[in-house]
């Protein structure tokens, strides 16, 4: 299965929508790879640069409530995937985005606000990284010399999708 973890990109705002993750004008791209340069292009956040080194190196995104709301476009998980980001941690997700992540074999993990506040306290640390163990249901935040582990729950179905690498082959086999 995929390894989850690595450098963290902190996006400290609720309600980040899929238009901000990948604007509609790029929905005419035919391959996932073509989406790569446009990640988070329309997201306006103080200190955030969609083309900056932090975006490039990120493997995990940490954000707030209702992440991925709006359009159903699976281009949003895809633009993360082709940029090497395979997990998003947030207080809550919009339903379609959350399912799209799992359907692609990636992880959308919900944590309580208090845990996220602790994780966000590492946001200024240049070397913040995270390790995620889907089977154990734990994620470990490393910020410099500090380390803290949190536990999370995902549904058995979503876990099966991540382990199977997605929904299409699974469904074709079973239905």
């Amino acid at each position: 299965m995929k390894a989850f973890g690595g450098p963290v990109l902190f996006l400290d705002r609720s309600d980040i929508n899929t238009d901000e993750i990948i604007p509609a004008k790029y929905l005419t791209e035919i391959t996932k790879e073509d989406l790569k340069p446009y990640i988070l292009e329309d997201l306006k956040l103080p200190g955030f640069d969609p083309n900056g080194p932090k975006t490039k190196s990120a493997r995990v995104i940490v954000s707030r409530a209702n992440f991925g709301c709006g359009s159903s476009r699976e281009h949003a998980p895809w633009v993360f995937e082709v940029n090497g980001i395979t997990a998003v941690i947030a207080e809550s997700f919009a339903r379609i985005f959350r399912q799209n992540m799992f359907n692609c074999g990636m992880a959308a993990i919900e944590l309580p606000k208090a845990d996220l506040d602790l994780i966000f306290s590492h946001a200024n640390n240049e070397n913040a990284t995270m390790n995620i163990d889907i089977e154990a249901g734990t994620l470990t935040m490393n910020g410099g010399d500090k380390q803290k582990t949190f536990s999370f729950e995902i549904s058995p179905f979503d876990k099966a999708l991540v382990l199977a690498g997605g929904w299409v082959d699974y469904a074709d086999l079973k239905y």
Partner: protein
Amino acid sequence: MGKTTAEKIFDAHLVNEPFPGTKVLRLDAVLCHEITTPIAIDDLIRRGKDRVFDPSKIKAVIDHVTPSKDTKTATQAKILRDWARRHDIKDFFDIGANGVCHALFPERGFIRPGYTVIMGDSHTCTHGAFGAFAAGIGTTDLEVGILKGVCAFRQPKTIKFNVNGALPKGVYAKDVILHIIGRIGVNGATDRVMEFHGSTIDGMTMESRMTLCNMAIEAGGTSGICQPDMTTVDYLWPFIQGEFASKEAALADYSQWRADADAEYDQTIEIDVTVMEPTITFGYKPDQVKTVSELAGTRLDQIYIGSCTNGRLEDLRIAAQILKGRKLAPNVRGILSPATPAIFKDATKEGLIDIFMEAGFCVTNPTCGACLGMSNGVLAEGEVCASTTNRNFMGRMGKGGMVHLMSPATAAASAIEGMIADPRKYL
């Protein structure tokens, strides 16, 4: 214990429950458009699974950018067109017959009470107006839907909205749903079905119910659902008269999908429409709403009337009633996109198109176009649009552009004054 409409539909369509909490449902309709489907088609081909579960249950349309504006959009259209031909999908709508998916498919009678419906489009919740469970999904779920005719869902909880009272002058379904979203917030209904009840809904046309359900997703809702009644039967009658001996028989059958009186809800919310005013969004989130009195005078550059929210005949009638004999203010431009060819034709017959053109509107072919900032009325940086669509996200109708969502009546009044204006003085 009784059941909600969604619970009844889930039980009737359950294939299995592969894991606790996950239900795989049999689908009655899989809807497709040219933005999200071509990638699913490509992937199915790549996997050696270029099949469809049942061509008669798949409906497809080219609607987002049509006629195509460049090579890329032409390629997307071509992939969908070739696929529909290859698999003998009869209900495929191409240039000349195409229109905005969530207006076109119901108009063709494809959606019935009790149906399960998916589409790779978040506003699929619109079809819940018929008492169906209709949900937007992503491309992978669409792919499985096309291939297998199933989709997995968590059983949603349901929020019951009791919407009561006579709509005041100048207040329409759009104002009601904007008000509701403002009240519960953009994730107030996440993983929930929004089930609408009450005298206001009973009195609404199917068009208005579609407007209402269309924006359930703007509150995070999985589907909006209205209760099937005689209004539903009347709308569907041309398509179902062969199936039922009488309208009463159809109503009796469809009533099985109405929620039980003792159904259990996650939450019940009372909405009194009699205190409402025309309602408009002001920021970049659909739950940021104010009344027209608070926003009157706001600067505008463009008026857009159309989309799956408010591009139907009744919307055009209301706007035309206000625009009749009047002109667009010189500082704004106006665009009208009737949502389907049938709406366009009827509006022409009724003289509505004339009224719009006399007022100075540009009338486009049926398409999503400017609603998602892809064509036909994209905004320039810093421009502001009064729009009857459903999303006001930053950049939605063009990078750096700003959108105020409102009813067709408010949009028409604003067109005349060149700034946000109260429709009530023109009614």
